[in-house]
């Protein structure tokens, strides 16, 4: 299986209101996250302002995160940063300047994933998404659907490249994808 490629508008497998709180719970099992925190946890939401589905999901993510308790993520509050890829010239620079620690990818159209991966790995930002197909092409953590249950999908190579240290207990619960690293 190769990494990179394109992001074509795929589907969110599980409703946002369900998978976002689940992702927040999952992030508690990144042992490297707490060491990077300075007061709060900035989560970037990457979307395309000119693609309605993407901007709608971004709004839903914003709503879902706003409803989380203040200490939902390793005891720290979460700060949401919306990043419109259609208006961002340099994603890597944006991630660094905003201090983003986690980057959530909404469904997007015609986006070269290499651009996103290069930026996230240079900035050591953990990527998460509700579109399970994106995990198979290089995003670190996603949520799929198995029967009537959500299924955690982890691209172990990608998560390690992004500086995450995921606990073995979490990996046991997940469907783990191993790829040759970039």
């Amino acid at each position, binding site marked *: 299986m190769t990494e990179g*490629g*394109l992001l*074509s*508008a*795929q*589907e*969110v497998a*599980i*409703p*946002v*209101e*369900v998978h976002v709180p*689940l992702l927040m*719970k*999952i992030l*508690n*099992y990144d042992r490297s996250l707490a060491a990077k925190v300075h007061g709060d946890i900035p989560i970037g939401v990457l979307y*395309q*302002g*000119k*693609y*309605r*589905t*993407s*901007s*709608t999901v971004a*709004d*839903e993510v914003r709503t879902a995160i706003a409803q989380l308790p203040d200490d939902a993520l390793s*005891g720290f509050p979460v700060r949401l940063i919306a990043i419109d*890829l*259609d208006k961002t010239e340099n994603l890597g620079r944006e991630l660094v300047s905003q201090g983003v620690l986690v980057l959530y990818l909404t469904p*997007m*159209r*015609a*986006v*070269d994933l290499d651009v996103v991966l290069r930026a996230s790995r240079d900035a050591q930002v953990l990527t998460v998404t509700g579109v399970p197909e994106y995990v198979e092409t290089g995003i670190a953590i996603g949520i799929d*659907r*198995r*029967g*009537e*249950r*959500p*299924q*955690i999908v982890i691209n172990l190579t990608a998560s390690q490249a992004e500086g995450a240290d995921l606990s073995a*207990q*979490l990996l046991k*619960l997940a469907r783990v994808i191993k790829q040759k690293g970039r």
Partner: protein
Amino acid sequence: MRSKHLALLANLVIAAPFPARAQDSLSPSNSGLDALLNTKVSTAAKYSQTMIEAASAVSIITSEDIKQYGYRTLDEALASVNGFYLTYDRGYTYLGTRGFSRPTDYNNRVLLLVDGNTMNEGVWGTAPLGTEFTVSLASIERIEVVRGPGSALYGPGAMFAVVNVITKTGTGIDGLEAAVQGGSYGQRRGTVLFGRRLRSGTAVMFSGLIEGKDGQDHYYPEFDTPETNHGVAHNLDWERRWGVVGGVAHGDLALHARYGVRTKAIPTGEYGADFNVPDTYYRDTHGAVQLEYNRDLAAAYHLSARSYVDVFQLKGQASYGGAQSPITAHSTQVGAEAALRWDFHSSSRLTVGAEVRESYHGDYVSGEHRQETLASLYLQEEYQISGRLTALGGLRFDDQRTSDNALSPRAALIYAPSHRTTLKALYGEALRAPSTLEAGAGADNAVDPEGVKTFELLWQQRFSRGYLSTMSVYQYQAHGLIEATGDNLTSYANTGEADAVGVEMGIQARPGQYLAWYGGYAYQDARADNSETRLTNSPVHQLKGGVSVQTLPWLRPAVEFRYESPRRTVIDTETDSYLLTNAHLLITPREDDRVALSIRLNNAFNTRYALPGGTNDRQAAIGQDGRNVSVQLRYRH
């Protein structure tokens, strides 16, 4: 703290027994209205979008709806769609939409798909929508209904609606399920469903259905003479059917196959057949194999392609003047379709496609065997003008060897002033080429395609959490309608025009996982053109609704009602209006839902009602079933 998180995570994701009630299920209805609105539909544009984004009037019937309301057949599920109404003539079920359901039109103005593959057969264009649809409802993930013309994407035949039945994937099923069912009129049914994602990543699914029903004796006063058993059709309402569906998916490839047979006795003496003669029946066989390929080629290109073989056979017999006469027809359709989707910017998506289809068919009436070739090109552009305004335009060109070429355009504007409000202005044209029977039996073979033009304004409003209202105003003009003429029902001509205006208002409420309800009112004024005469088989008013409530952790009752105003018959009488009430009880004694008991009561108050017969029937109206019950026991491993 961390161990508490881990326990919660484990409870959510692993398949171990735990309190798995509605709140832990991810089905759209149990996750509220948001989940339903985010359910992706592919029928409206041939790519995934939400029902709010779709440039059409779209309804979704989910697998949870099927489970909670206890639908047993496809037509029971479709009856819940606003603007839809059904007619049953003791042989086949016909779908009316927006006031249009011509007697004996064989459902050839509605396109029925299963996983994107056409189920309308090649002789009459019939869409099997009742018990002649042999796909088990347990294998259905959702039913996507697109009301209005669909020829700009699907070609000839999609005049008034496209119904796409999406089956569950092997990954989604993830287990084995079996059910047995018994009920009134000697009904007995068995179904099985299996699906799994293998370690190799291949997903497999299989579903099977087998059913028998003894039926009832029916009395028809039109045949009340000593020679015809005083109008009683004895032992002529039985039915046998079975069907299988299978699917294999790996990577970019998916293979679907289905095969089913339905045999139904006919008690009505239709088409002038001798009344009350044993072994008067039709046997419909539908089969299909479809191979699909979907791949993202590059940063902005997606290729989808499919090839298919569809087969249909009709066999039966009836007696005319004391002599048994066989009934046969067959069609084989072989085709391929490819479409390239180009996202050259996040705001713009262009789809270009082509389809080629060869059809071989023959029927007992014309005695002819014909070959038809269809070659089509279509394109569609979706452009987001601004954050709130989207435009869509599409055009399809169909070249049929045995019929005039056709252009089918569509256009739409979608304006979303807020996240809660969506306004749509829709225009579309669609056509239907004459079927083999119609083309062969026209005067000098001069039967032209019929067409329809539709204009619609649609308003969708979310208010409060869990409530969605929809209001639609539409107008359509149908021209060159192909109808049977004269006493000889096998003569066809483009007899005339029809136009209609209508309003559809509906509300869907899913305020939480324990309660779901819906309501809908449709006003449809459909008339023959330049005339004050309403179309036959066209109720002016429809009112329908349903409610499903989780009253106890193991008990979920549901009730639905349907009201219709009178329909005009082919002999210019009227049927009575009627109110039908159906009830359902879903009992799940185990917390993991492995076992379920489903009790469905149709026509709970035993309402006596009749629906218009066709031009092939002596009966102006045909009585429908009284109160009947079915009980289903399901086990899931």
